[in-house]
C-alpha cells in the first residue's frame, strides 16, 4: 500500500494516454510573435475607450455648463483622466520573452510584486488625479442646485469621497492578499538564490 503511489506508478499514470501538442506552423508562430504586443494593447483598449467617453462628456460639460466651478471641475477631471491613461500605459508592460526564461518562482513572485505595487498605490496613480476635479465639480453642482448649506455641501462631497474610499479600501485589501502570497512564497520555498 505504501508503494501504491511510488514514483514509477505516478509517472506512468501521468504520461499514460495520447496527449499531443498540436504544433503551430513556424510561420504562424512568427506571425503571432509579432502580434503579441497587440494583446496587451487590446486589453487596454477598453480602458482607453471608457476614458475617451469620460473625456468627451467632461469636455462638453466644460463648454455648456454654467459657473466657474463646474467648468474648472470639468477641466480638472479631463486632466486627471489623462494622467490615469498615461499611468495605465506606463504601468502595463508588454510580455517579456527574456523574463519568461527566468526561474518560475522568481517570475511568479515578480508578477505578484508588480500587481501588489499597482494595487497598493492606486490612490496615487488612479484615484488621486481624479479627486480634485470631481470634488470641484460636485461643489459646483451643489452651488448650482442651491445646496450650499453645510449638510447639502457635505452630501455632495461625500458621494465621490465614499466611492473613492471604497475603491481604495478594496484595492488595499487585494494588495494585502497579494503581500500575504508573496510572504508565503518566501517562507515556504527557500530560494536557490538565482531569483533574488
Amino acid at each position, binding site marked *: 500500500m505504501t508503494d501504491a503511489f511510488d514514483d514509477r506508478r505516478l509517472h506512468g499514470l501521468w504520461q499514460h494516454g495520447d496527449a499531443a501538442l498540436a504544433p503551430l506552423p513556424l510561420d504562424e508562430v512568427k506571425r503571432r510573435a509579432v502580434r503579441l504586443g497587440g494583446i496587451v494593447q487590446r486589453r487596454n483598449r477598453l480602458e482607453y475607450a471608457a476614458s475617451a467617453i469620460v473625456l468627451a462628456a467632461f469636455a462638453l460639460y466644460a463648454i455648456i455648463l454654467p459657473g466657474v466651478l463646474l467648468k474648472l471641475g470639468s477641466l480638472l477631471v479631463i486632466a486627471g483622466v489623462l494622467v490615469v491613461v498615461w499611468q495605465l500605459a506606463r504601468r502595463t508592460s508588454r510580455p517579456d520573452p527574456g523574463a519568461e*526564461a527566468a526561474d518560475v518562482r522568481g517570475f511568479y513572485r515578480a508578477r505578484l510584486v508588480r500587481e501588489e505595487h499597482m494595487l497598493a498605490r492606486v490612490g496615487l496613480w488612479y484615484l488621486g488625479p481624479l479627486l480634485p476635479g470631481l470634488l470641484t465639480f460636485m461643489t459646483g453642482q451643489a452651488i448650482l442646485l442651491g445646496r450650499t448649506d453645510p449638510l447639502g455641501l457635505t452630501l455632495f462631497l461625500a458621494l465621490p469621497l465614499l466611492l473613492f474610499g471604497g475603491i481604495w479600501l478594496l484595492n488595499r485589501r487585494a494588495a494585502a492578499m497579494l503581500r500575504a502570497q508573496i510572504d508565503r512564497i518566501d517562507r515556504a520555498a527557500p530560494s536557490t538564490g538565482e531569483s533574488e
Partner: protein
Amino acid sequence: MQSSEQDRQFSEAITRFGPALARMARGYEADADLRRDLEQDIQVALWQSLAGFDGRCSLSTWVWRVAHNRATSHMLAHRRRNARGWASIEDVDLAAETPSPFDAAENDQAMALILSIIDRLDPPDRQILLLYLEGVAGAEIGEVTGVSPDAVATKIHRFKAMLTRRFATGDAL
C-alpha cells in the same frame, strides 16, 4: 542567436517536449478550448525566448521555465474563474471528501484525483508537482523553479503522502 538556429532549436524543442507540454497544459487549464489557446501561446513564447537562449542551462530547463511561466500568466489572467482559490500543498485538505477504496482506484480515478489536487495548488507548488509527474529529476526541478532541492523533495513527499493516505483510508472502509 541567428534566426535559423532559433528555428532549429524551436523545432527540436517541440519534437522533444511536445507531448510533455500538452500534459503540462492539462495541469493548468481544464477547459479544452482555453487549453488549446494556452498550448499555442506557449509555442509562441518558446520561439520568441529562444532568441536569447545561450546554452547556459539545458534546453530542457529553458523549455520548462518558459512554458510554466507562460502557463502561470494564463492562470493569473483567468483567476476569476477559480472561485475556490489556490493554496500551497500544505494547506490542501482532502479529508472532507469521500475516500475511494484502493481497489476502485483505477487509473482514471487516480488521474482524476491527481488533477483535482493540482487544480487547487498555487503556481509554485503546481509547477513542482507537474515537473515531478513528468519525471524531471529533483535537481532540475530546483533549477527550473528556483526552489531548493530540499523544498522540492518536501513538496513531493507531501503529495505522495496525500495520495497514499486518501486511498489507504478507502482500504479501511
